[in-house]
């Protein structure tokens, strides 16, 4: 029998936060206006207007959402298409910044871009990503955005209030949208210029990215569920604080220290889903023998090796599964 020995407990905040159920909306809450004002104040500073040109003539505009303190903006390919130039980001207070595309994923209609730093060490207001798997029909929902260029023209973010009014699959594409797949429908208004913007829950977390596709049975606004995009977004998220030399990153491994035949060893107890670890096909029960090339003998060793790892970096591990060693590379995600 193996005897398990003592180890320290780090943290499970993220996992718990993702798994904890949200409180449901009471029916009368639908009619109350109390919560809307505070939600708007909290999140509207992180909602930006976007515009760009393509091929000299075509002018595109829409909405984006800042999702980390370093100015990472999530939006849609209907706002920033491939080959876009002169990308402008309209921040609160009438500030216009340039933007730089980080990632374009046409199938999921996803674009990530960074606001080019206006000055060094600017921290941007940002909105957190929610959990769209936990969304239930009838939950309150908000749309925010650059409706008819309201941000660009008047520095005003338009707010729409409604419900999660449907959860279904969009089987065909329509309008300029290339997205087909699971969708969150909302009774909150979605007007021209709001595509690429956020669908938010009552706590102001992003449930989805507003999309131009719709069902002809409904003629209502839809959003691409944020969980559909997370595996693409999370590797780019996060920040590294130059002042404290510390990062906030996530790999999704829950480890345990057990005493084996040849001394202490570190074993995977659980793997978060989705996580960098699950994407790297790691599973519970596998033993981790090396981290960044160095032999691993204790959990403390893992922590030391993992410290100062930045989001987007690759972490090399050697794992042993049923006596078979293999090399694994994990792309580390950031978190806030």
């Amino acid at each position, binding site marked *: 029998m193996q*005897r*398990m020995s003592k*180890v*320290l*407990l*780090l*943290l*499970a*905040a*993220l*996992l718990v936060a993702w798994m*904890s*159920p*949200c*409180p*449901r*909306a*009471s*029916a*009368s809450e*639908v*009619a109350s206006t109390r919560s809307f004002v505070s939600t708007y104040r909290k999140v509207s500073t992180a909602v930006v207007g976007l515009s760009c040109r393509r091929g000299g003539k075509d002018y595109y505009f829409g909405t984006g959402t800042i999702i980390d303190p370093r100015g990472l903006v999530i939006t849609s390919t209907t706002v920033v298409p491939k080959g876009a130039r002169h990308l402008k980001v309209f921040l609160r207070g009438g500030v216009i910044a340039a933007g730089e595309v980080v990632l374009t994923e046409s199938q999921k209609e996803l674009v990530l871009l960074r606001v080019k730093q206006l000055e060094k060490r600017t921290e941007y207001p940002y909105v957190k990503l929610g959990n769209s798997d936990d969304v*239930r*029909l*009838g*939950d309150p929902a908000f749309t925010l955005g650059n409706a008819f260029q309201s941000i660009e023209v008047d520095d005003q973010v338009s707010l729409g209030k*409604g*419900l999660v*009014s*449907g959860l*279904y*699959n969009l089987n065909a594409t329509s309008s300029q949208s290339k997205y087909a797949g699971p969708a969150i429908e909302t*009774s909150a208004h979605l007007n021209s210029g709001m595509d690429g913007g956020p669908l938010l829950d009552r706590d102001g977390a992003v449930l989805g990215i507003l999309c131009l596709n719709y*069902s*002809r*049975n*409904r*003629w*209502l606004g839809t959003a691409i569920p944020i969980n559909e995009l997370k595996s693409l977004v999370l590797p780019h998220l996060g920040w590294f604080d130059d002042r404290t030399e*510390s*990062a*906030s*990153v*996530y*790999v*999704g*491994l*829950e*480890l*345990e*220290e057990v005493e084996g035949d040849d001394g202490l060893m570190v074993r995977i*107890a659980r793997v*978060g889903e989705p996580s960098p670890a699950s994407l790297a096909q790691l599973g519970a029960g596998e033993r981790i023998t090396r981290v960044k090339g160095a032999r691993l003998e204790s*959990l403390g060793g*893992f922590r030391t090796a*993992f*410290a*100062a*790892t930045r989001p987007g970096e690759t972490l090399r591990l050697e794992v042993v599964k049923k006596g078979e060693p293999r090399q694994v590379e994990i792309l580390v995600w950031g*978190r806030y």
Partner: protein
Amino acid sequence: MRPQTWKALALLAGSLLLAQASAKTSDSVVPDSVVPETVDALLERVGQWVVAIEVERNEDIPLPFQIRGASANQLRNYFKRPAGPATGILLDREGYVMTSFYNVAGTVQSMRVILSTGNSFPAKLIAKSFRDDVALLRIETNESLPEAGPIWADSSKSQTGQILFALGRSPDPDRLTVTEGIVSATRRNGGRAIQTDAKLNYGNAGGPLVNLEGRLVAMASRVGHTQPQWGLNSGVGFGTSAATLLAILPQLKAGKDIGPFRPPFLGVRGNRNPSGKGAQVRQVIEGSAAAQAGVRVDDVIREFNGIELYNFDHLRRLIFSCEVNEKIRLKIQRGDQVLEVAPILRVIPRGL
């Protein structure tokens, strides 16, 4: 000694991760004084009797107007009936299903009703009401059906401003949809329907409008290309009220159709004077109800069914609140004389 398991959660490495307040919130919300219920609990209960209807057609009813010009495709897209299921209301274990007549209009080949349980059955049209845009279907099966059906709201207690939810089962029969709104008017379509600002669209037609208690207030109707001027999701939507539905269901169950509204006709013309006492008659149509009852030119109609008339428009509105073949009472002033007559309202003659 019990082996101890110590787990390290290497979910992070850095230092400063604060434990997020992931305060476990209970699933039930603090009871509210108005409605001790969550939206999803309400939907789960109500959703049991909201059904989907799949209709196979040979031919659809025509579009309400000719669509030409540059935006023709867009317009056609908007007004053409979309593919996919429509919504209906399962009334009882006998398999009666109520829906908007628009949903089953056209030359229909076959219909299937998909219950909330996912079971689907063939169904047949029993009767329809053009007046209220209602169709009654019946599921054809020997299987016993689930015990489900709406709890009806009392239409007399319906108030403007009351909160409503509009439910549907389209485009996906397995999943409900819900839009929210208020009662915008309680007595539309001659007092037979309510108006709501809840977003109503093709997927809502034939579905329920329920109040905060989950009671059936009305059935969404007149959604679709039969009433293009109201549009989809326009904030002006209509639902045939519970009282109307309850009143016409016995007739529909007996297989009797109800025709479109026939405006009743008295047969007088008058001045549209904005003020004054009574409605002055300027012309009496030959052979009309008014002529037969002896109404003459220059008579002033003072009362209609005991209601004092303000002017001619008032009279007109009161006539339209009646039915064809209804006997009414008029108090008429002719010079110094006051007469009482009781004409029977008829249909408008052709050519008028």
